[in-house]
């Protein structure tokens, strides 16, 4: 099952061959000729749009069918992360560069390889532009790294649909574009605008392949949870992901992090006492689509009375792609044991602990919910017990430039 790990000479050869195929594709589509690329913007030659949208559609259908059939492990495919505003601004600049200079970076390399002087000069321009970017980016580093940074964010998440439905929409969008381009070109030339037999067959194939993705599911969350099992078991055993109550207090007062608290206990325990802003959820809630307020960059802390349910929830969240999920060490029982002593309303140890896997070991005179000081212990106003703790939660900063994808 792909993708594969390549090392040494095989790594070079595989990428060289992929590049070779890429070069042949660009050359044979006529993209070694600036007039053809600029023609897209002059509306005299719409090859760029046809080739690009066909390539995207074909690669997308093959990719997601391979994911559905287990030929490709989608978790190991590097997906371009979204940095919305730098992407839009940079995209507009590339569009301007194409209309003025007649190439984009890849096509200028192909033009150079076929001895076009304008291609070579465009590549020189690229060097200058990249150098200028390196020299100037420090003056707007925050914009570059953080403006509209959404991590891995795909159309299905944006539209709130399954991957298959999103892929089908893209298929329809591409086909609609081809239809429009065809009518436009034939009308301009005054030709018969019927579609060729091959075109109709290919369109049928694309629609069937796209519709199929709507029906055939991508591998589910459960298979992802199973696959991540061993790796997570190791960090759980090493207690790298269980954060001390004092670290959570620290996170609660750190306005640099987006913190989400998920309480897995039953409603009665939750109503008796819970941390401020904690959401009461069940494992089933987490197995479905996560609510939209869950930001891939937030730190999520799961909690139950001890750790068992919280650990299950943690496994699901990590499989859901939330790399910043952690467990409250010792759960609510430990929290109350640590901070109960400084509370305005004192929790009392329960004399007869309830049956069941994870009972609450403290009780309050009434169901206070979060209307107790220690639902949000404030170190500035309360004398909290001093604890030694080791910082474990890592704030999820948007990825930096070292990644894969577009390199």
């Amino acid at each position, binding site marked *: 099952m*792909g*993708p*594969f790990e*390549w090392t040494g000479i095989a790594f070079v050869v595989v*990428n060289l061959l*992929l*590049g*070779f195929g890429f070069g042949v*594709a660009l*050359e*044979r589509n006529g993209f*070694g000729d*600036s*007039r053809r690329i600029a023609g897209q913007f*002059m509306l005299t030659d719409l090859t760029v749009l046809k080739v690009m949208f066909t*390539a995207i559609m*074909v*690669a*997308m259908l*093959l*990719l997601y069918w391979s994911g559905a059939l287990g030929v*490709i492990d989608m978790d190991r495919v*590097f*997906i*371009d992360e*979204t940095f*919305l505003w730098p*992407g*839009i601004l*940079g*995209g*507009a*600049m590339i*569009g*301007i*560069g194409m*209309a*003025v200079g*007649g190439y*984009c*970076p*890849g096509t200028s390399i*192909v033009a*150079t*390889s*076929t*001895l*076009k002087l304008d291609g070579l000069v*465009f590549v020189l*321009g690229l060097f*200058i*532009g*990249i150098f*200028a970017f390196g020299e100037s980016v420090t003056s707007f580093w925050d914009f570059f790294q953080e403006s509209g940074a959404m991590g891995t964010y795909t159309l299905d998440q944006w539209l709130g649909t399954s991957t298959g439905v*999103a892929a089908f929409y893209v298929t329809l969008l591409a086909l609609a574009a081809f239809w429009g381009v065809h009518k436009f070109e034939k009308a301009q030339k005054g030709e018969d605008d019927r579609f060729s037999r091959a075109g109709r067959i290919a369109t049928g194939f694309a629609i069937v392949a796209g519709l199929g993705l709507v029906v055939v599911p991508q591998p589910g969350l459960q298979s992802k949870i199973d696959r991540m099992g061993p790796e997570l078991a190791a960090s759980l055993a090493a207690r790298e992901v269980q954060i001390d109550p004092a670290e959570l207090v620290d996170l609660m007062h750190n306005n640099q992090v987006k913190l989400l608290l998920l309480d897995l206990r039953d409603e009665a325990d939750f109503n008796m006492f819970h941390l401020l802003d904690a959401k009461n959820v069940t494992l089933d809630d987490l197995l479905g689509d996560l609510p939209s307020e869950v930001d891939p960059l937030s730190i999520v802390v799961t909690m139950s009375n001890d750790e068992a349910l919280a650990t299950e929830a943690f496994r699901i969240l990590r499989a859901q792609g939330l790399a910043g999920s952690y467990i409250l060490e010792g759960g609510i029982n430990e929290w109350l044991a640590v901070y109960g002593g400084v509370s305005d309303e004192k929790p009392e140890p329960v004399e007869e602990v309830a049956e069941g896997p994870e009972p609450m070991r403290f009780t309050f005179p009434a169901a206070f919910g979060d209307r107790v000081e220690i639902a949000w212990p404030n170190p500035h106003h309360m004398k909290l017990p001093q604890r030694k703790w080791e910082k474990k939660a890592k704030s999820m900063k948007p990825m*930096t*430039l070292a990644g*894969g*994808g*577009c390199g």
Partner: protein
Amino acid sequence: MKTQSPIKLWNPYAGGAFLGFVLYLAFLLTGHGLGASGGVARVLAGAMDMVAIDHMRMSPYLSGYADAPFSHWIVPLIIGLFLGGMVSGALAGRSKVETLRGPGISPTTRLVFALIGGIIAGYGARLARGCTSGQALTGGAQLAVGSWAFMFAAFGGGYAVAWFARKLWN
């Protein structure tokens, strides 16, 4: 041989499907897509590291690329891109020294605008973390929101200046 007319280009839909298949093979075999501008950046960083190492260390952006710039997949990929274009162009009879341009401008004018366009595109490609290959094609096929926004912005940028650039091409 020199007088032979060049081999015809592919039908754009068939050619697009071939390009899409190459992109798919990249996903299947390596888990990353295609790219170009990142490779140009790494070649630049590698070259500068040889001639201007002190200056490189001052630039946090390019020096990030300078550590073993040639060990990244994108460098063999763009070497392959160059070779593929070269072989395909030579076999098709399209390899010859020339300056491709619109009918109304001189070669010098064309080269000046190619340089300007290259500078703008090079700057934009690093700002957008990828170009038409790495963002539009690769991210587009992966349904990445940022890549689709990039693609519409690229068409938008091109059409916004098309009227001013029309004398270069028509």
